[in-house]
């Protein structure tokens, strides 16, 4: 594509820049989704504090579902109110952008969270312990695994209902993350949604050692990466003298008014810009799970309680990619010629790395983890397109992918044996004979991952590749199809295992879920097929949402 004068006019609409420092002015209406969620979270905490143990589960479920639904309604309201397109602008003193991508991603995150909450609340799968139905979370996270305290807690029928407020907090952070319009907000949001996730990871009822290990790994590496992010922010701040996206962008494009001498000095110093940009990028790529910042993914996905894994895998990616898009399209478009080649490299190694390593995986959850890495690579191809098409294709892909992921992990929670979920692939042998329906549903998800036509996976993949090809990244498309071919191999391997190999006598049984998980899976399948067969409406949505405000 030709790089004519202000390139990012392609995807940004000018909003009036404040001429003098105005009195603080917060558009609460436009921030309502976030506010609702956080409010709900706090309410949840209060519930934990004041309601008797027995009633908490119901109350928490009620609160969180209601909160998420309300927040989603608010998002829809904003979108309907044309905040996605015409009235898109920067709210809260330049801290939060309310525009198409933000609303689209927030909507997606909220739906994902809603479905995820269903799987969180599932209480039918684990066998009844001492007359109490239990979910997949530890009775008492603080108790030593296998210790007396734990036994007592289980006996007493304790449950960690804190997960619900935790999820809501995480969601709150995620809602802000992609709409953050300055680096500070970005950083805070990152931490707001990361910290609850660290905790959630540690709460598994079965395999607690693994769960805790996952948590500690996730936490340490997460903190490590956020330190990098923060340092990057510091450098960018040093470069531009501001952390506002618009401000930085102006400086990068050299369109800044009233240049102070200090600014003039740092502006000249591209090292600050480049290094800072690279480090911020790294922070986001870590959350996305792009090679080589991906190594936490398999361990954490495997160790975390499966509902949490599903939520993480879906929602975190959405939020992180949103932030990445905004950073690259709003803050660093002027730097396009610097970061594009780098991202090319990242995308290629991510696609290939994820696909190749997945080939020899033996654990379903790790397999899905690596597949999520490969998919991150595909999405990156769309990011690199740097065209409006690229934005909308990424948005669409994220929506499609997140529901497939949720569904897949929800199915994983169903296949259990004495030790809880039977995630080792060898145990899945012959599942198709035992319970064809579950196997078929999982096959649908796998085919969607593999990008077989008539599934959302294909539509998304095509959208992204198409954008990439249009954006002059044809080579990425070729790499993409090659790694898809490799990826196809291991998805198929699972299908073969489920349908064509004899069931093992000691094989797992498929637990019959309550309406919660069933509806989660059903929604997953529905979205997968609808987005596969008739994606046009959603493509339009994504298309309209494909413009960043600045």
């Amino acid at each position, binding site marked *: 594509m030709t790089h004519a004068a202000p390139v990012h006019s392609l995807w940004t609409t000018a909003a009036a820049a404040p001429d003098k420092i105005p009195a603080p002015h917060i558009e609460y209406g436009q921030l309502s989704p976030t506010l609702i969620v956080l409010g709900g979270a706090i309410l949840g905490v209060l519930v934990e504090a004041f309601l008797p143990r027995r009633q908490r589960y119901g109350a928490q479920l009620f609160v969180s579902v209601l909160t998420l639904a309300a927040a989603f309604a608010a998002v829809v309201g904003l979108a309907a109110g044309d905040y996605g397109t015409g009235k898109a602008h920067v709210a809260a003193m330049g801290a939060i952008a309310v525009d198409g991508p933000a609303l689209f991603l927030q909507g997606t995150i909220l739906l994902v969270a809603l479905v995820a909450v269903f799987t969180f609340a599932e209480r039918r799968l684990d066998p009844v312990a001492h007359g109490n139905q239990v979910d997949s979370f530890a009775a008492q996270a603080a108790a030593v695994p296998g210790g007396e305290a734990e036994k007592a807690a289980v006996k007493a029928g304790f449950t960690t209902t804190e997960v619900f407020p935790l999820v809501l907090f995480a969601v709150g952070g995620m809602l802000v993350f992609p709409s953050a319009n300055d680096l500070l907000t970005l950083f805070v949001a990152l931490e707001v949604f990361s910290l609850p996730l660290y905790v959630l990871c540690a709460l598994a009822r079965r395999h607690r050692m693994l769960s805790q290990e996952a948590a500690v790994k996730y936490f340490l590496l997460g903190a490590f990466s956020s330190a990098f992010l923060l340092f990057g922010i510091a450098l960018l701040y040093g470069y531009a003298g501001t952390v506002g996206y618009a401000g930085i962008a102006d400086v990068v494009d050299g369109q800044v008014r009233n240049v102070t001498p200090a600014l003039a000095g740092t502006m000249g110093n591209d090292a600050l810009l480049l290094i800072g940009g690279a480090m911020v990028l790294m922070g986001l790529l870590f959350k996305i799970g792009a090679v080589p910042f991906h190594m936490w993914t398999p361990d954490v996905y495997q160790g975390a309680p499966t509902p949490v894994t599903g939520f993480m895998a879906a929602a975190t990616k959405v939020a992180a990619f949103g932030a990445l898009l905004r950073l690259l399209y709003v803050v660093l478009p002027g730097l396009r010629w610097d970061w594009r080649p780098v991202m090319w490299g990242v995308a290629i190694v991510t696609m290939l790395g994820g696909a190749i390593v997945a080939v020899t995986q033996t654990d379903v959850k790790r397999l899905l983890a690596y597949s999520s890495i490969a998919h991150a690579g595909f999405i990156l191809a769309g990011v690199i397109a740097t065209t409006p098409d690229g934005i909308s294709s990424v948005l669409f892909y994220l929506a499609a992918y997140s529901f497939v992921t949720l569904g897949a992990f929800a199915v994983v929670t169903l296949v259990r044996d004495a030790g809880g979920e039977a995630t080792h692939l060898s145990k899945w042998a012959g599942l198709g004979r035992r319970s064809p329906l579950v196997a078929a549903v999982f096959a649908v998800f796998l085919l969607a991952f593999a990008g077989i036509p008539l599934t959302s996976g294909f539509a998304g993949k095509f959208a992204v590749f198409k954008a990439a090809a*249009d954006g002059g990244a044809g080579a990425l498309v070729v790499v993409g199809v090659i790694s898809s071919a490799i990826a196809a191999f291991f998805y198929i391997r699972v299908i073969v295992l489920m349908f*064509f190999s004899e069931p093992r006598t000691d094989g797992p049984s498929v637990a019959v879920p309550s309406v919660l998980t069933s509806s989660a899976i059903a929604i997953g399948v529905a979205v997968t097929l609808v987005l596969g067969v008739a994606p046009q409406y959603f493509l339009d949505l994504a298309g309209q949402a494909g413009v960043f405000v600045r």
Partner: protein
Amino acid sequence: MSFPLLTVTAAVPALGAIATAAVPAAKRAAAKWVALAFSLATLVLAAVALVRFDPGGARFQLTESHAWIADFGVRYELGVDGIAVVLIALTAVLIPFVILAGWHDADPLEGERPNRRWRPTQGFFALILMVEAMVVISFEATDVFLFYIFFEAMLIPMYFLIGGFGDRAGERSEEETATQRSYAAVKFLLYNLAGGLIMLAAVVGLYAVTADDLGTGTFSLQQIVQARASGDLSIATGTERWLFLGFFFAFAVKAPLWPLHTWLPNAMGESTAPVAVLITAVVDKVGTFAMLRFCLQLFPEASKWATPVILVLALISIIYGALLAVGQRDIKRLIAYASISHFGFIILGIFAMTTQGQGGATLYMVNHGISTAALMLVAGFLITRRGSRLIADYGGVQKVAPVLAGTFLIGGLATLSLPGLAPFISEFLVLVGTFSRYPVLGIIATVGIVLAALYVLVLYQRTMTGPVKDEVRGMPDLKARELLVVAPLIALLIFLGVYPKPLADIVNPAVDHTLSVVDEKDPKPDHPVDAGWFSYSPMHDGASGGAK
């Protein structure tokens, strides 16, 4: 708007698949009848389409066009030309026989406790109908993307058919059979998926180039062809070649063309005879069909550029396939390699770029479908009787089951394209078509004729003639159902061998159009005889090419 015949033709088997799958586990038998009923309904619809199709009429007829995925420039565009409508008819004709032939293939093994939820019988027939639906719609699609979607999606049901249902173990142990089978299934899927994904890259590329020149990307075959003709759309030579290769690779895998063929023997060997027929007689045709419809018309220049290589590969396929067929010890694999050789002929005809060649290739698709079906299904009946695929395990069958042997021989004779049976005509046309432009290739290809005689007759001799083997003794002859499957196919072979004109008349205009898109003309004879010689036959008022 008019009645959406094509959509319905594709939808009926799809509905049939759902209906069949929905039949409760206890009523296995009912599922078969449901499937058969729907396949016959499809046959009727296909017949209607064949009748309503006017050979002299527009290029694409019975067209339908609806918006679908505007963002991808994709429309739901259906339409059939002579080639497509004939192949749809072939599909619709074969499926009922496939179902009949496979009547007991998916029954629970005796002694096997039928699981309450596991319903192989329903699945088997539902999958067959699903494949039919997808094949039909990919013949109908005039939108590249629409075609691609079903070209790819069809792999899934095929894959389950191959991997899920095979011959009874027979000589080999159950688990070895199972492993062999899933190996074959995976091989099939991976080969074709790889091809498909490469094609996906080309499809995306096609979108990109059309988007560049036409503003909005499009996948409409007609629109692209017109745009190229009018010069609105110009594709750089290099790009066109890459795109062509992307498409051709997928089709060459499907067809299959040497050296991308090795999945076929495994797939056909491990699957039950009806499924093998489904693979080689129906699904693979989509590949050769797509070469005619998409490769040649979307990328005429690149097609001509690639022709020499492709012709050589086709030639290799012909002879290589035949030689390997001679070397096989397994009946089904032998037929598979024979098919590879035949597909070589088809591709040879397509890329000879002459009316005879392409017309012959089209007829070849039909005739090969029928002849292979006849041969393979009879072979299947034979194998189910004896429970072994090894040629060496048979001998003297002709003595105990003369009708079976007789039909087998006729199927074999059709395979070696004996004059009077349909395949002869297509094969000869392909040879003439090739010869008239590439004499040497044409002559080398004739070697295939001799080799065909060799592998067919050797197969017949080893299995049917000679002293009666003990295991064969007391083998029952064809039952009524089986005869009902084979007899009509043989009748078709004879009819199309004696009077192919109706078929040819439907196909010719389409072929002429294809050639006109590629901008190729038949080479003129060196010393054309006076046209007056043709006057005595009233049929020859039509364009009689070289003679006029």
